[in-house]
């Protein structure tokens, strides 16, 4: 239980606390100077707030260093068990503990969050209309959100998970509504919050009900002080009806978060109105909490109900895959389009999870990482493109021939797009193939219906690329410059990650393979034959 024996340094707590410190430092940098009295925020305040963004960047890079340390302390040979664990009593009266620990999947998702934040900070360097005080607050909020994201992926306590799951809505809400660039950002923020809270409150009822399923200690008449630990809630003898209701409540919250058809409608509004950096964090990391929750909470806590609900969920997942792709093709706003592609991709992830095969689940887990990188790349590069438009238009029709004026931008955008459509050699391909193979073993019909989405993906990616980057140079973007060093760094890191994970997926798969086996075991299924052979084959 006490993981402190393995490695004495509390890496995960460090990863949780450090972003908060960095956020405080960011918001305090130059705070003494205050806002110039005239109300014009630039000018006098520029120097101090300029250092604030540097502070935020350095803070996020130190976080990356901490992450490297955590990877060093993690043993991939036992990736299926929680490592780096720390357990402290938090609210014994309610059975809640501060219990963190990571298995391979959660570590990769922590890595995704920690890795994307410096890129988001770099991408936001000149955002918020040159108002440095706003930028400073924006970056501090991003860092606070990062701390929450680490906790939520590392939580081994359902209460802790729930608390952070809900609490992180507040910074996310301000990122959308307070710092967004779209005209309807307040509407989008409120919609996001209400959707998420509605799901969250339904989940709360199930969390309470689940807690009360923990047997009472006959000696004291109380429930154990660590009743909420995931391991204590796993394998409870639940009444089938109660289990199904609780599963449904958890799943609803996660499906809204993921987002899955038919509760995805908040997502396009958010991506259209938030800054690309916010969208990156929200769609690429925060929404993974939904699929992560399905994988690490729904499956082990409610195995019977998961099996019971799987057919319906597979149908919804396939609908998501196709519906998201078709709607993406019809979009005229590039950020909205990327939002819809994510609905499609999340459909793949959910399909993979509910195959209950090692292959499908490890594919889904790997896809959570890949989707984060490729969609993050699309959002940030689309953001760079939009920044080159004099009116900052998000309409695809307002661009054209961007490749001629900004070749590096065009090239990297194309790579990110090709990864989104799962071109072999790029990261998403490996995971998508794994999901398809895993699903084919159990739900061949679903795969047959979902496969056309690959073609649809090619349509929405290539069509967008063609309209924005090829042909006549659009009248308004004639004088656009290519990526500068800062932007090239962001694009370069993301594209490199996509290529490396696409060509050498083996090391990353080492992190997800064992946890996938554990998940299949939890849900009480066995892998259909032949599975591992196909996996090795797909890796070439």
């Amino acid at each position: 239980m006490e993981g402190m024996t393995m490695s004495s340094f509390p890496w995960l707590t460090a990863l949780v606390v450090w972003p908060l410190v960095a956020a405080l430092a960011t918001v305090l940098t130059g705070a003494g100077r205050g806002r110039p009295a005239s109300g014009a925020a630039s000018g006098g305040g520029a120097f101090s707030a300029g250092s604030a963004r540097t502070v935020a960047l350095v803070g996020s890079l130190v976080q990356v260093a901490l992450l490297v340390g955590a990877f060093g302390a993690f043993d991939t040979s036992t990736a299926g068990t929680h490592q780096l664990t720390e357990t402290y009593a938090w609210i014994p009266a309610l059975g809640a503990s501060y219990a963190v620990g990571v298995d391979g999947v959660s570590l990769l998702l922590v890595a995704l969050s920690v890795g994307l934040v410096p890129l988001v900070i770099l991408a936001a360097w000149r955002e918020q209309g040159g108002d440095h005080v706003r930028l400073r607050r924006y970056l501090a909020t991003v860092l606070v959100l990062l701390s929450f994201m680490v906790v939520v992926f590392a939580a081994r306590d359902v209460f802790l998970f729930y608390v952070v799951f809900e609490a992180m809505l507040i910074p996310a809400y301000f990122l959308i509504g307070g710092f967004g660039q779209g005209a309807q950002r307040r509407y989008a923020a409120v919609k996001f919050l209400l959707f998420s809270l509605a799901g969250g409150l339904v989940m709360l009822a199930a969390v309470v009900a689940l807690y009360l399923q923990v047997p009472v200690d006959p000696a004291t008449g109380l429930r154990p002080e660590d009743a909420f630990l995931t391991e204590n809630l796993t394998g409870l003898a639940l009444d089938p009806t109660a289990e199904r209701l609780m599963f449904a409540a958890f799943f609803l919250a996660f499906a809204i978060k993921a987002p899955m058809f038919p509760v995805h409608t908040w997502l396009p509004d958010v991506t259209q109105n938030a800054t690309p950096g916010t969208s990156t964090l929200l769609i690429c990391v925060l929404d993974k909490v939904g699929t992560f929750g399905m994988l690490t909470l729904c499956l082990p806590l409610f195995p019977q109900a998961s099996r019971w609900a799987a057919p319906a969920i597979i149908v919804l997942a396939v609908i998501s895959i196709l519906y998201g792709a078709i709607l993406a093709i019809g979009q005229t706003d590039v950020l909205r389009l990327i939002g819809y592609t994510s609905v499609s991709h999340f459909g793949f992830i959910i399909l993979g999870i509910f195959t209950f095969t090692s292959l499908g689940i490890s594919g889904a887990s790997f896809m959570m990482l890949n989707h984060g990188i490729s969609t993050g790349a699309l959002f940030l590069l689309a953001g760079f493109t939009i920044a080159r438009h004099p009116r900052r238009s998000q309409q695809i029709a307002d661009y054209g021939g961007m490749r001629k004026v900004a070749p590096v931008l065009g090239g990297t955008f194309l790579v990110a797009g090709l990864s989104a459509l799962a071109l072999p050699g790029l990261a998403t391909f490996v995971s998508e193939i794994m999901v398809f193979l895993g699903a084919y073993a159990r739900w061949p019909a679903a795969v047959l219906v979902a496969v056309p989405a690959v073609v649809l993906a090619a349509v929405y990616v290539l069509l967008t690329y063609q309209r924005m980057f090829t042909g006549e140079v659009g009248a308004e973007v004639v004088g656009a410059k290519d990526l500068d060093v800062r932007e090239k760094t962001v694009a370069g890191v993301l594209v490199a990650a996509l290529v490396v994970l696409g060509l050498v997926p083996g090391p990353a798969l080492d992190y997800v393979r064992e946890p996938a086996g554990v998940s299949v075991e939890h849900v009480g299924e066995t892998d259909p034959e032949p599975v591992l052979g196909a996996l090795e084959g797909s890796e070439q």
Partner: protein
Amino acid sequence: MEFEAPVIDWAVLSPVLVVLAAGVVGVLIEAFVPDRVRRAVQVVLTLAALVGSVVAVALLWDRVATDGFAFVVNGTFLLTPFTLGIQAVVAVLAILGVLVIADRTRTGDDAFAPTAAAVPGTTYEDAAREAGLQQTEIYPLVLFATGGMLLFPATDNLIVLFIALEVLSLPLYVLCATARRRRLLSQEAAFKYFLLGSFASAIMLFGIALVYGFAGTVSLETALFRMAQPGGPILELMPALVIAGVLLITVGLLFKIGAAPFHMWTPDVYQGAPTPITGFMAACVKAAAVGALVRVVFTLSLGLDEELRRNLEVGLWAVAILTMLVGTVAGAVQTDVKRLLAYSSIAHAGFLTVAFVGFSETGAQAVLFYVLAYGLATLGAFAVVTLVREQDADGVVLGEATHLSHWAGLARRAPWLAAAFSLFLLSMAGIPLTAGFIAKFGVFSAAVVAGAWPLAVVGVLASAVAVFFYVRLIVLMVLTPPAEDAEGAQDAEVATEGQDAPDLAADGAGSSAAAGRTLAPARTLRRAPVVVLSSRGFATVAIVICAVGVVLLGVVPQLALDWAGQAASFRPVQP
């Protein structure tokens, strides 16, 4: 006939006595202390008395927790751990309430009329205002009301229960009528409160009479033992009498906590009363009344047979569901911040009822934690309302800017105040890492434990609706540009914010069309119509304490939960 002096354990009475005695001294101060120092003396005395009451509660704690109860003069005064817990909450909240009441802001005016006796709009009133008169009777009145609240849950005697109800209500009726501004509204509120309150008192008294007629005693515990007596099942003789009696007593108490369908007075009274008094009422009266209700209902439920208890439970279920629905649905369409908070307090009365429908100790624990969490957030929220004022074209500070449109963009003018207010709202909405979440968690757990899971489900849905109107207010403060920005040319963001104006209607789809509609006229004003006053310290202290309390109870609630668990033990007391 020989007269035997009763032996009175004065120590047990001390939490109440300190406060009532200070109230009496306060009245004498009114008569004998000169004008200049009177206010200062009253404030110090009031705070000292309330702190003394908290200390007395703390000193009694161990004794009562060990013995299970402390008993004075045949139960006319009865301390149980739960009672003491309620007293602690009431006294602590009253201290914070008095801090808000005592704040005069930088204008030098408090929230109370210079002379409450003056007819509004008369030259006499103007003269009193110009003379700078102060109504320092406020403080003894607050002390008397608090004394009544401390006594309310702490008696076994139904007559004393009624007296406590009157002692706490009568000063409040007066206090409600004393607002400095919008005096007619204030007097109307007081009159409504008085009429409906007297009605409720009469109903309760009738209920007490019926129970007396049935059991031949006004002692709850004795009545309980008579009911449960195995030998003589007098319950079978006249069940209607005791059912009606219990029902009427419960109705009287439900009126005080503002539960539907007895909530009608709440919005009007909360809106009309001086805001510091509203905060005081919303937090302290609710805590005291819930305490009394839980004590009476729990005790009586022990004596009722299975079927009658089931009926009582069904009644409470109906009240809880109705209250939550009325509070949240009506709250969602309010355009006045005080009315919005009033409906929110109705909704919270519903959540509180959910906690104790099962008559379990878990429920009592949840109630204690909930009134503390709710009280802190509510007091803090009303304290913030006292500082947000209207001003006219010449910059003269007027009354409180309670219309929601005035709150637009508050975060830009007063970021800290808006942050605190948002925190209180988030806590009321039950967002994790605030006290409200732990409180709500406890309430729903108690309901599920008691088998009342449909109530928990309704509660969850009601919470979702409630979140909607709390968030609407936060959106207004934090994300909506302030009204004067439309013309303030120096702001670089004017162009973009101008574009946003039509989209308020779209915002309305998410929040309410009302916000967008009411913003439009405000934009035409020449000068910023709203000003945030700096407090003279008292209110700031109260707001800071409330905010810290809300966060601490949300992040590290263990101590408070332990305390509430310790306080929530119900053992029947032998008379």
